[in-house]
């Protein structure tokens, strides 16, 4: 009986609905020492001195270290696989604590104390003297001559600039009769807001350091801690329990190296570093804010003659994932609407703001907002039907990307859009809403999105899997593609049960808590790679295990292996369908046989050298209250072609979550920075507007299940894609309702007020023109 394709309950659901699931803090000794980080209060400058004399006197303080004490080692933090080629290694630009501080919130000193109160009091009592320097918050300003320089190795603050050149843009734009649409779009800084803040604790064991951490990438963190502390990587052990969400923030090395260092400073005693919510906003990672410029040269028949793209990505103070993010967004540009003549440039620029890293979508939510807003704007300028334009120009079936070798096997874009249009009555509504008057107007908008699965060929892709047969015929399963809430462990259990030939997915015990000493090496949870990448290793290893089981069955039954099969936990003779043996009996025999005892296990690594497109679209329907400048989303539908669904109910739930994040990105979320000081202004869950139950319509998720031919189970990316198309779909719905192009996020009342005034929809009582 197949397990794959069924909406079975999660393997971890029982632990989570009873509260017995153990997250990092639940495993930490309540008497562990507590660490607090002292943070820079200026946006840019040098620490001249740190006075710890008053802080040291506070009862309970055990140890204080400052930026003058830590080793002079710079290390990278990005959750990328290490590259053995130096040119492809991540940028190492920060120390455990920094004397050259580059943003408000930078790490200057750390206190270790017996309890939280003493740690907090001591952190407040530390006096830091700074030599302030000018600072810059905007990426385009930071690129100008004379701008403050954050890292001397990058005198123009440009961490990286890459380009795409196709055909001859300059010649192509000379073609007579072209219409030029030239626009800028802007997206803000937002934060992941997983409900469990980042937390870790560290302790010494033998001559090694153990770190229990809320991370998506235990094996990568092992390496970065080794690099940061100058330790052999084998001396670092990372344990990852259940984690309360990550969304990319925890696809980065956060405070594991500092926590390990602090533990080593106090003789390996257990030290806990629990980041408060306010610091999670500022001193973890954020999604890159971007300014995006698109120039399209269009023929009156609605085809592109030439296109130009410039993207400016705000990196903040340190490199983290750096340029990979905007580069991914740029990479989608020539693929989504193929055009013979393209000039594209992307710049990742250091600024004195919070550090940007990976966040659900990895550069694609930013890109899709600009690209799909622009598609709508082009059609509006030309008087074209935007849906027909998309059908005509979007990546056709059979398209192959030269670099990744990804192929659009099934005309996914058009299939998804067709379904979305049919489900929402889009065509009729879009026409009916086009010319409304009155204060409250309705609108409908569509946006397709481009995405791909995992990181090959940009970077290494592989997965290792271990399966162990138990005495009762159940198996243990380990892979390093971590469960972070998305439901990966359940999908793995379903896959493994089918490949090995077990009756139920509950016969597979997935080791959810990862330990770099125990779990086979693997890269972790990111790039929507888990089911695709781990799927290969699970299938390959499952076949090895099954083969070994059938060898043993052949021995026990004296039947040739080619006449045996393992189905639903039973050894079946294929020639007559008779059940010869239960797997449970075989397993017990294999363990305890006095003639041939063997522990049946399998372990293998599969290196993935393919990638898969994962496309879809979103349709949003809105109600815009023009005088109040408020938008209410009344219907939201995402359609995904993510291949074959392993667990439809969990897939649908994943999509809901991504859509929710998309609603926040569209309408309410932004981390604001004070232009006068560089300080974050709303780094808490009250002032940072995360959407609540009240801000959502009923969320609808649907799928087109084209079996992905490159995949071990026909599946491909779904974790990140749902977030990507929501903001442009809502934006295009607002355009349909009001005729106003809103070109920046979030589309909150502040922004809509300005735009509605500019377009004459409302009279601004504060200006004469009114």
């Amino acid at each position, binding site marked *: 009986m197949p397990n794959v394709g069924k909406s079975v309950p999660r393997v971890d659901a029982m632990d989570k609905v009873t*509260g017995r699931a153990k997250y990092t803090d639940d495993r930490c000794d309540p008497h562990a020492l507590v660490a607090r980080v002292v943070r820079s209060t200026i946006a840019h400058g040098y620490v001249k001195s740190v006075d710890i004399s008053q802080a040291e006197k506070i009862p309970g303080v055990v140890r204080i270290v400052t930026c003058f004490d830590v080793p002079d080692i710079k290390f990278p933090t990005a959750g990328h696989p290490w590259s053995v080629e130096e040119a492809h290694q991540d940028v190492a630009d920060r120390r455990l604590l920094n004397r050259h501080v580059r943003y408000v919130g930078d790490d200057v000193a750390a206190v270790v104390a017996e309890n939280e109160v003493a740690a907090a009091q001591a952190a407040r009592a530390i006096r830091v003297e700074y030599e302030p320097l000018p600072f810059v918050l905007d990426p385009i300003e930071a690129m100008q001559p004379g701008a403050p320089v954050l890292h001397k190795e990058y005198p123009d603050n440009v961490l990286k600039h890459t380009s795409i050149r196709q055909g001859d843009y300059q010649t192509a734009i000379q073609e007579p009769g072209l219409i030029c649409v030239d626009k800028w779009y802007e997206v803000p800084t937002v934060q992941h807001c997983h409900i469990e803040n980042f937390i870790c604790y560290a302790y010494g064991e033998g001559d090694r350091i153990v770190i229990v951490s809320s991370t998506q990438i235990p094996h990568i963190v092992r390496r970065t801690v080794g690099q940061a502390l100058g330790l052999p990587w084998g001396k670092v052990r990372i344990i990852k329990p259940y984690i*309360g969400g990550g969304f990319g923030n925890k696809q980065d090395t956060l405070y594991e190296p500092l926590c390990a260092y602090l533990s080593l400073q106090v003789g390996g005693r257990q030290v806990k570093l629990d980041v408060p*919510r306010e610091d999670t906003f500022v001193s973890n990672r954020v999604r890159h804010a971007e300014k995006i410029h698109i120039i399209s040269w269009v023929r009156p028949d609605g085809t592109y003659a030439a296109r130009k793209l410039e993207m400016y990505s705000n990196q903040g103070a340190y490199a983290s994932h750096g340029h990979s993010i905007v580069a991914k967004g740029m990479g989608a540009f020539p693929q989504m609407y193929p055009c013979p003549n393209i000039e594209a440039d992307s710049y990742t620029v250091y600024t004195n703001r919070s550090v940007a890293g990976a966040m659900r979508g990895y550069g694609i939510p930013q890109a899709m907002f600009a690209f799909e807003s622009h598609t709508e704007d082009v059609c509006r300028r030309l008087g074209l039907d935007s849906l027909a334009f998309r059908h005509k120009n979007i990546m056709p079936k059979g398209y192959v990307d030269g670099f990744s070798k990804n192929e659009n096997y099934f005309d996914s874009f058009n299939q998804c859009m067709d379904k979305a249009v049919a489900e929402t009555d889009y065509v009729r509504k879009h026409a009916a809403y086009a010319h409304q008057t009155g204060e409250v107007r309705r609108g409908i908008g569509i946006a397709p999105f481009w995405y791909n699965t995992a990181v090959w060929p940009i970077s290494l892709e592989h997965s290792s899997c271990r399966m162990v047969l138990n005495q009762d015929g159940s198996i243990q399963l380990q892979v390093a593609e971590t469960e972070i809430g*998305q439901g990966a462990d359940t999908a793995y259990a379903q896959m493994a049960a089918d490949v090995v030939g077990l009756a139920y997915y509950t016969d597979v015990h997935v080791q959810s808590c990862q330990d770099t000493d125990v779990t086979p090496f693997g890269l972790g949870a990111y790039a929507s790679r888990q089911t695709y990448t781990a799927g290969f290793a699970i299938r390959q290893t499952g076949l090895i295990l099954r083969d070994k089981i059938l060898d043993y069955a052949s021995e026990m039954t004296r039947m040739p292996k080619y006449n045996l099969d393992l189905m639903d936990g039973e050894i079946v003779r294929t020639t007559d369908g008779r059940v010869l043996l239960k797997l449970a009996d075989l397993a017990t025999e294999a363990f305890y046989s006095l003639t041939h005892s063997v522990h049946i296990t399998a372990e293998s690594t599969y290196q993935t050298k393919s990638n898969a497109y994962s496309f879809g679209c979103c349709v949003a329907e809105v109600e815009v209250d023009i005088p109040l400048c408020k938008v209410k989303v009344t219907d939201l539908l995402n359609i995904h072609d993510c291949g074959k669904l392993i667990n439809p109910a969990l897939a649908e*739930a994943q999509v809901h*979550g991504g859509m*929710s994040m998309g609603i926040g990105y569209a309408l309410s979320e932004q981390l604001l920075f004070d232009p006068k000081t560089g300080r974050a202004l709303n780094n*808490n*869950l009250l002032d940072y507007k995360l959407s*609540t139950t009240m801000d959502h319509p009923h969320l609808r998720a649907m799928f087109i299940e084209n079996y992905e031919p490159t995949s071990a189970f026909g599946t491909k990316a779904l974790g990140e894609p749902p977030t990507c198309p929501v903001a442009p779909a809502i934006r295009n719905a607002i355009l349909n309702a009001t005729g106003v192009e809103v070109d920046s996020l979030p589309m909150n009342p502040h922004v809509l007020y300005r735009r509605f005034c500019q377009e004459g929809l409302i009279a601004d009582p504060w200006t004469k023109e009114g």
Partner: protein
Amino acid sequence: MEQQYKQVNFNLNGKDVSCVVDIRCSLTDMLRNQFGCTSVKKGCEVGECGACTVLIDKEAFNSCIYLAVWAEGKHILTLEGLLGPNGELSDIQQAFIDEAAVQCGFCTPGFILTGYEILETGKLYTDDELRKLLSGHLCRCTGYENILKAVKKVMYQRLGKTPEEA
């Protein structure tokens, strides 16, 4: 100097208990550190996210902004207390499993307890009312969709109705 520690006597999940706490200690910390109630989660510690929700005399509170010493004489229910005598799941816990309302699980205990509070009223609420009643909790994984579905399902179950009849 004022005394820093105080004994608190209260009822936790049906059992009378007492302990000595620092008077500055939050109810969250007391329940986690002294009673091992790991279902009480810390997401913000300032009453914004709802992850630390417990029922105090049948009413949902953010335990992170409730002093431990205020628990004196109160009946406190945490998620651990919802299980039956033989570890059976309550209807609302089961519904969270069946409706795929659980993802990372960190907001789950709080949501279930507020859901339980809503259900205990025995009232029939509209979708909009349910959304408002649950709005004190933040979740980043689920878009709230299946959480609402789970609460609604049990509401109808308990009232012996179907959504069509309502």
